[in-house]
């Protein structure tokens, strides 16, 4: 009875949406995906899916844009639990441990069959695979992946007497350059800040960069231990605080992830740290000459990787899984990855993607497009633990508490560590 109703509903739905002539033998796939940066990304995904369907007439794909990373995970899991179809999804690369705890996903090692497929699995940048691996197996395939890069306003650099081709490469330089870039009006009010690092949305991600630059990581590979209270990590947070408090190159308090791009485009800040996923939108909207650089370093250079991976759900039929694997392979193939990277600013996920004509030409005419890739050498995994949502909130809250001056960096990070330890104890 329920199936009949469902079929009827599906029929009515396809009539409403204007789908025509569904092939009865087709394998139907439903995938959820998130968007966390600007621009009409849904159009680009739809275009890629369409191309896939043309090449594979026996597979029907419904791609569902579900909101941010958290929404995508919740909606995909909700679909699974309530018996709605979902065979694969793009979800946060750091959801891996939680998805495994829920026994929701399959390892790709168990899905690939041919040598060509195994080769494909080995073809990605190793740094991007860090968040996709656990217990020696690969559970997530990199798709919309990014690192944090530094966007800077070359015109502002010139106006301040700085060399626009020499962005700061160390923490000291970053503070010094930032100071020169701060512009004040007659009343002493700031008209242009030196730099902004966002602290809403994904503060833990920005922080991972600072920690890595100070030679620290935030958690272990198994995702059951965090290192928030290490001296090097605390020192990284103190530097972030100092950018506002001591050097005054950044406004104090919390900086909004969502409106930061607008601040940069309106020249309210001369530098910003943001996802490479914003590159194309910035390029299309900047009315001034801008550059993109690797993030500056202290002990070393560094940025976490970020973004979304493909996962394949366990409770699909073998036929569906094979089709899903085909789709993932298509979406991450060098040609598609190159197209995707050019359209968005996200990284080409494999070295082969950067060998394609599209990206070779693009990098030649627009060198910033290669910065994220070059930074991969210094990249680290993004904060991924069991109970990721909770642990992330502990860290986010601590960072915001420190940045708004409610707590010292040390106290905030020690509290966060204690809370994270309490939650993760069960997984050790």
């Amino acid at each position: 009875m329920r199936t009949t109703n469902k079929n009827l509903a599906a029929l009515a739905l396809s009539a409403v949406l204007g789908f025509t002539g569904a092939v009865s033998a087709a394998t139907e796939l439903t995938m959820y995906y998130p968007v966390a940066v600007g621009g009409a990304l849904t159009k680009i995904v739809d275009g890629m899916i369409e191309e896939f369907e043309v090449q594979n007439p026996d597979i029907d794909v419904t791609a569902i844009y579900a909101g941010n990373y958290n929404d995508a995970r919740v909606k995909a899991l909700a679909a699974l639990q309530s018996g709605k179809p979902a065979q694969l999804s793009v979800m946060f690369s750091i959801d891996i441990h939680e998805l495994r705890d829920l026994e929701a996903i399959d390892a790709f090692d168990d899905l690939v069959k041919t040598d060509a497929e195994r080769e494909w699995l080995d073809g990605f940048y190793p740094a991007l695979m860090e968040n996709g691996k656990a217990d020696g197996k690969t559970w997530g395939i990199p798709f919309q992946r990014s690192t944090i890069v530094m966007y800077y306003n070359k015109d502002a650099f010139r106006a301040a007497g700085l060399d626009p081709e020499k962005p700061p490469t160390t923490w000291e330089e970053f503070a010094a350059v930032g100071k020169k870039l701060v512009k004040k009006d007659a009343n002493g009010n700031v008209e242009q800040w030196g730099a902004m690092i966002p602290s809403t949305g994904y503060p833990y991600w920005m922080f991972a960069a600072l920690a890595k630059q100070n030679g620290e990581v935030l958690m272990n590979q198994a995702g059951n231990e965090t290192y928030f209270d290490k001296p090097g990590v605390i020192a990284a947070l103190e530097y972030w605080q100092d950018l506002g408090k001591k050097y005054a190159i950044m406004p104090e308090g919390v900086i909004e992830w969502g409106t930061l791009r607008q601040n940069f485009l309106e020249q309210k800040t001369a530098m910003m740290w943001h996802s490479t996923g914003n590159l194309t939108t910035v390029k299309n909207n900047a009315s001034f000459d801008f550059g993109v650089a690797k993030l500056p370093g202290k002990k070393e250079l560094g940025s976490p990787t970020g973004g979304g991976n493909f996962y394949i759900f366990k409770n699909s039929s073998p036929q569906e899984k094979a089709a899903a694997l085909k789709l993932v392979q298509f979406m991450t193939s060098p040609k598609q990855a190159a197209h995707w990277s050019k359209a968005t600013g996200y990284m080409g996920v494999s070295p082969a993607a950067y060998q394609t004509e599209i990206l070779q030409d693009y990098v030649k005419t627009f060198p910033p497009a290669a910065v994220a890739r070059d930074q991969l050498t210094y990249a680290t995994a993004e904060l991924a633990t069991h109970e990721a949502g909770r642990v992330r909130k502990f860290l986010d809250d601590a960072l915001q508490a420190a940045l708004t001056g409610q707590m010292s960096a040390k106290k905030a990070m020690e509290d966060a560590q204690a809370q994270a330890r309490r939650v993760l104890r069960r997984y050790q």
Partner: protein
Amino acid sequence: MNRRLNLKAWLLMLPALSLLIAFTHWPTLKTFWRSATWAKSDVAPSQFVGLENYGLLIEDPVFWKVIENNFWYALGTVPTSIALAIAMALWVNGKIKHKGLLRLAYFTPTILPMITVANIWLFFYSPDIGLFDQLLRAVGIDGPNWLGDPDTALGSLMAMTIWKEAGFFMIFYLAALQTLSPELYDAAKVEGAGPWRIFRRITFPLLMPTTLFVLINALLNAFKLVDHLFILTKGGPNNASNLLLYYIYETAFSFLDSYYAATLTVVMLVALALIALAQMLLFDRKIHYR
């Protein structure tokens, strides 16, 4: 009382009662039960843990923070909304020019969805580029980082809530004002009472039943209205603007922990029960349900 009538009445009640029981009473009971159980994940079977979840609750600093915030949120939005609503109703009911337009202006927020207008408020509150900071700069003041500063974040949310609610409550006062008899006012004027005195001695006391009704609604809304948090602050910075219902949502649908979410919901239910109790004990004699 005859039996046939009895059965017929219950039959008429059946659709309403079955829906209400299925989606209000039964889930309320289940919430209490769930708050006494726990499972490692949604796929694992749950077990009875007694009051363990409540132990976690007491140790959870975020929980105490959202309770505190909800208290301030209620205290900050309820009296102000009511005061503004009364003022608006008096203006619109009085002899002011462009009455119709004014009434329209006050009422507009009621029909705009909070979630979409929140994006516009996000622009108002944006540091440096936002409207409020632009206006302040025009008079030479370096505006605050409204949503990014823990001292102003909750207040900023309250301002939007008041904006949303005052016009709606105005309607109730307007309705009440139109039932007041003009003779009362004529008599007062003959005795030479000033407008403030008239308001204090005649209007305000006569509006009391409306005020109590609005008060209850405003209190309920102080628990219920969290839509703007999704856009404006997500409860940040560091939970400075987090509210109980948003925390319940986060716990259930971000952390996927329905057991702790149920425990938080119990607290909410208890708070609502207290409001209901207060209403029954203190006010019921004054609001006439006929």
